[in-house]
């Protein structure tokens, strides 16, 4: 508990944490500010006309489903139809918030990975790991407590930034766009998306932390991690599409979008087309985190600290 307090104080004292929060807030205000300036608020009559057409499209969609089967990733046929029928109107729509959150997830993950790698690697760069271990020599405890602090820190920061984004987006939609056409479970879907993005970001931050502890450097860990994720996974997915079911980036995408990846080599042959479902994606993420953490702990315990 005392070590946890110490680690929380250390993390809170790092300049990077407020920089990420402030930078994220500035990015949100500037990005949505530009969108607000460029948006044209639709007239009430145009919205009313589009609303009638939208409701007719949703009803038609629901009628097309005759059997009991609900499309994957949705709770009901109604939810599927409401979320997949585009309203016949342009402009800044609040109903797009879920898709926008998925779109900015890459930046959120990037911030989380940088936080995880930095909070894990800073002690090696500053040579303060030696000092810390002369106060708390139980290395497994040090590793786990720091992992907990990183997880809490990344989760809280990313949830905060996304909630602020959602709030500002709603404000812009109500003043410069429209808040009509919202599916019944709109806010639930938005908050589940925020939660999934933050959980995936937390998981990838722990992966970055583990790599930083193995490489004993923030920069080296970021280089190795991005090199693996972008180059190795990108290249290998291109050469062997069926391996996508075991890749970290694909797992993150599936968890965030809540949509499975389909096997491009088996479309229409009658067999199962799902290459990676949502539960498999969670499992893949978990396996990467656990295996890399175990490797990092083993190396941390055994290697000399000089």
């Amino acid at each position, binding site marked *: 508990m*005392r*070590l946890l*307090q*110490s680690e929380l*104080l*250390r993390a809170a*004292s790092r*300049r990077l944490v407020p920089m990420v929060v402030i930078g994220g807030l500035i990015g949100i205000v500037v990005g949505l500010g530009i969108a607000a300036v460029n948006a044209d608020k639709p007239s009430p009559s145009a919205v009313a006309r589009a609303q009638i057409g939208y409701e007719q499209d949703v009803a038609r969609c629901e009628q097309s489903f005759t059997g009991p089967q609900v499309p994957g990733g949705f709770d009901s046929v109604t939810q599927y139809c409401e979320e997949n029928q585009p309203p016949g109107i342009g402009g800044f729509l609040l109903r797009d918030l879920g898709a926008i959150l998925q779109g900015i997830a890459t930046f959120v993950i990037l911030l989380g990975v940088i936080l995880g790698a930095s909070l894990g690697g*800073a002690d090696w760069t*500053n*040579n*303060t790991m*030696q*000092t*810390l*271990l*002369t*106060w*708390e*020599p*139980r290395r497994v405890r040090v590793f786990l407590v720091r992992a907990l602090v990183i997880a809490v820190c990344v989760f809280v920061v990313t949830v905060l930034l996304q909630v602020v984004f959602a709030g500002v987006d709603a404000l812009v939609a109500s003043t410069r766009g429209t808040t009509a056409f919202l599916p019944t479970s709109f806010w639930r879907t938005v908050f589940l998306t925020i939660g999934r993005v933050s959980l995936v970001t937390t998981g990838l931050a722990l992966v970055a932390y583990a790599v930083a502890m193995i490489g004993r450097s923030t920069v080296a860990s970021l280089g190795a991690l991005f090199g693996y994720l972008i180059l190795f996974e990108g290249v290998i997915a291109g050469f062997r599409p069926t391996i996508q079911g075991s890749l970290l980036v694909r797992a993150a995408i599936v968890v965030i979008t809540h949509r499975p990846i389909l096997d491009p080599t088996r479309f229409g042959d009658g067999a199962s087309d799902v290459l990676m479902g949502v539960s498999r994606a969670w499992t893949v993420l978990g396996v990467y985190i656990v295996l890399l953490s175990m490797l990092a702990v083993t190396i941390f315990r*055994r290697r*000399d*600290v*000089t």
Partner: protein
Amino acid sequence: MAMIEIEGLRKEYRRVRGGHTVAVDGLDLSVPEGGVFGFLGPNGAGKTTTIRCLLGLVRPSGGRLSLLGADVDRALPSVIGRVGSIVEAPAMFARFSGRRNLEILARIHGEGDAAIDASLERVGLRDRAKDPVKAYSLGMKQRLAIAATLLRDPSLLILDEPANGLDPAGIVEVRELLRSLGAEGRTIFVSSHILSEVQQTADHVAIVAKGKLIKAGPVGEVLATTGATGVIVKLADLEAGRRALSDANIPTTIHAGAIRADVPADQSERISRTLAQAGLYVSELRPDTVDLETVFLELTKDRGVGD
């Protein structure tokens, strides 16, 4: 109870291109309770590696170590709260204030603001506690590191080259601090390659070279090892003085504008009387004290230290 007990410590490092480097080679050492213990040796003698092994930072290749009676391999966490240490250069977060660095460490053992304030006061850093560490001089960083070791009110302090890189004023400050800490009944284990510095603070010393213990014991005992004591005599006619002393069976040499009589310092009166009887009057008569540097060079001359 010995505060530090080392038996047959051996540490080998693997070289990148194959083979091993032996940093510590069968070291035996026992540090008694109380006072200042100097752990001496040239750079590369294995001092820092020994300290790292004691603190669990480095895994020994062989041997047994205990701190405050606890086996380092199995029970270090049970005694680490009573040990304050600095290994090599003080490592702190440069952008954090001195106080924040101490707060982070103090929380680990549940120490509060009072302990932090007392430590900062003790090393004279209270006025600069809110400044970032990067604005500190090397001496201030060293003092901050010592303040960190004092947070836990330790009974054993392990300090690796605490005077390294300090200016003369900083060296004096650290020396005074070590003396006062030792006088409080704490055991101070201080490693250094600056032999003259340790001689002024230590009660006991151990000399190591190439990973092996060469000599250990109370400072006076170690200084007497070479038997190289004498009396320095200065007078106008060195040659006449040397003849007079030789006639009185006092062995002498002339060196650096003075006569060195190879007899114990308590023979000074005899030297003075002999010269006066020969009509020679001394302008200076003092014992030629042997320092640790001399003893160290004497003890290590056959071991290729410094090669």
